[in-house]
């Protein structure tokens, strides 16, 4: 395996950790709620997954617990923002700090423990394809599930009634209300579902990728997820590409250095953010951003 191939493989694996919360953020933002607390949801997911995985010995039970951990933080955000009309940005940041504090304290006992990680499965046949095989088909199952999740979410958003209601809630909640649906419920559901996905991302990190727990282990992945949604202009397929772009950028320097090519890690790290910024500017120039209207309102009125 050459350096380039290895960078891409690691990029997909690390990108999946970003992809799950980014899909979650996409769903929430499409319903008009931004969640800056994705980092907190991921931490809760990562610790729950690791703790349950370590105690029961089953990584899959861990993943389920991760979903629950993320969802609990998401429920708190949904309640504050939707039911109490709290400032979305402040609420997200507060829940990040809360989750950071709680997981650091509660997870202290798990720091040196071990867990049986999610097994890496080589997909029969597909993994034998040169190039593509090792890059895409030699991972743990959460990576494969994410391959199906992206088209599923795209289909649900654009082709189903619930997706229509969700998108309408993000644009004009009052219209949804007049149509006899309850936008508050839709938003709460979207935020909790999104946070649960972030919990899976956390699980992929703690029981799939590094097989370890230490405090603040998400190290900004949750914020990258928020950036990926901006990069993707709220499109599921572009979210996938964006997540892999960030994943490859994060992985590339280490891999390239191991192959004797000197690059500064942090120049590569900054690159996707820079691309996102340029994309925002380009979108803005081409006749206004495509942000859901309710989201723009929430971000402007929040102070």
């Amino acid at each position, binding site marked *: 395996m050459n350096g380039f191939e290895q960078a891409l493989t690691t990029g997909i694996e690390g990108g999946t950790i970003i992809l799950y919360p980014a899909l979650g953020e996409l769903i929430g933002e499409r319903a008009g709620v931004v969640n800056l607390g994705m980092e907190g949801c991921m931490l809760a997911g990562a610790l729950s997954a690791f703790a349950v995985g370590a105690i029961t010995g089953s990584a899959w039970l861990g993943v389920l617990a991760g979903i629950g951990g993320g969802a609990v933080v998401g429920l708190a955000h949904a309640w504050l923002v939707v039911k109490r009309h*709290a*400032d979305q940005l402040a609420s997200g940041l507060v829940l990040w*700090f809360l989750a950071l504090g709680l997981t650091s304290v509660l997870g202290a006992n798990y720091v040196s423990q071990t867990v049986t990680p999610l097994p890496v499965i080589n997909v029969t046949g597909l993994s034998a394809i040169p190039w593509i095989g090792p890059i895409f088909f030699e991972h743990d199952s959460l990576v494969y599930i994410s391959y199906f999740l992206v088209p599923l979410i795209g289909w649900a958003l654009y082709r189903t009634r619930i997706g229509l209601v969700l998108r309408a809630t993000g644009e004009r909640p009052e219209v949804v209300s007049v149509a006899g649906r309850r936008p508050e419920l839709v938003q709460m559901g979207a935020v909790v579902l999104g946070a649960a996905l972030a919990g899976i991302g956390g699980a992929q990190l703690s029981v799939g990728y590094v097989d370890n727990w230490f405090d603040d282990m998400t190290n900004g992945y949750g914020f990258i997820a928020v950036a990926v949604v901006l990069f993707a202009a709220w499109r599921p397929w572009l979210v996938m590409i964006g997540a892999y772009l960030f994943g490859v950028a994060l992985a590339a320097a280490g891999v390239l250095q191991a192959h004797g090519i000197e690059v500064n890690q942090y120049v590569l*790290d*900054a690159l996707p*953010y820079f691309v996102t910024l340029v994309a*925002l500017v380009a979108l803005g120039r081409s006749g206004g951003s495509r942000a859901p209207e309710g989201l723009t309102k929430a*971000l*402007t009125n929040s102070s």
Partner: protein
Amino acid sequence: MNVLSTKTQDEPKLLAPEELTNPTWSSRLTEVVTAAISTRGLRRLGVALGVYVVCLGLFALLVLSQKANPFGVFNSIFQSALFSNGSIPEVILRAVPIVLAALAVSVPARAGLVNVGGEGQLIMGAVAATGVGVYLGNSVPGFIGWICMGVAGFGAGAVWGGLAGLLRVLVNANEAVTTLLLNFIANDTMLYLLYQPWKDPTGGGQPESRPLSSHEVLPRLFGSSINLGVIIAMVAALVVWYLLKRSGWGFALRVVGGNQQAASRAGLPVNRLRISSMAVGGGLAGLGGMLYLAGTQLQLLPGGTATYGYIAFLAAFLGRHDPFKVVLAGLLFAAIAVSAPGLQLSYGLDGNVVDALLAFIVVAPLVLSSRRKGAF
């Protein structure tokens, strides 16, 4: 009632029948309204107290779950914030970057803009100050070095914040989003510099810049660990208070924040005001980064800002963007941050436990500050 009756007895002939009944009616109404207001006020106060008690109770439970005594922990936080040796100066020093970055949120908030970029603006301020400070070294007298570093820090923060304002005005890119992205670019810029070009060759391979030369370090005052930076930060906070509350610029910002269309119809330069509010805000945070660097850290370190920019956003929220309250909130959060090592030492709690306390303090107003609209 007595007053009314004496009044009617004193001037019986001047009162028309409706005037006789009216005072009683209106006084009853006043009575009822006052009673309603006070019960509602009392209820609100009660609810607020209740929420805070629940929040602190949850924190106490968290502490208990680690077999530590919550009263001891609260006591330890008070001790390290107020009573132990040298604690107050330490809190004040820590509050310098937090307060200035919080004011960096409050100034644009007047113009209706959301600055989530305090972190990046702090970092850029510290980076620029390091660049200038290390470059100047011993070549100029101390006070010129301080001025140059301060201008560089303020300028770098202003550019970082103003850029987001510019993008908002030119291409309508949401500033909450762009400032967030700029935070990460700032952090990566700092790390790039620290890991390669600016790495201290004598630092034992650690990613840290060369330390500032000793006479560039802000001098300590009154024989305490308080340094000149604290005075500068206080002056900056006063200037912000004056600008926002008393100056024409502050008034214009409020008009823009209130109703942008009305502001532009009234002939206010809306775009320029918005950009300037972001630039001034960013500059304040940049100055905070410079003061923290030249007063406390003395060399650029990775993770030196320790999420102060985000804590500052919450401080500005807690202080409702009122300069005076924002300063108090910043001091409170600085005190909480300072108490972390003590809790780690005495109770074996992870230092991040203070983040949970900070969150519980801000959750309370989030729960309470509901702008209740009509039921959906």
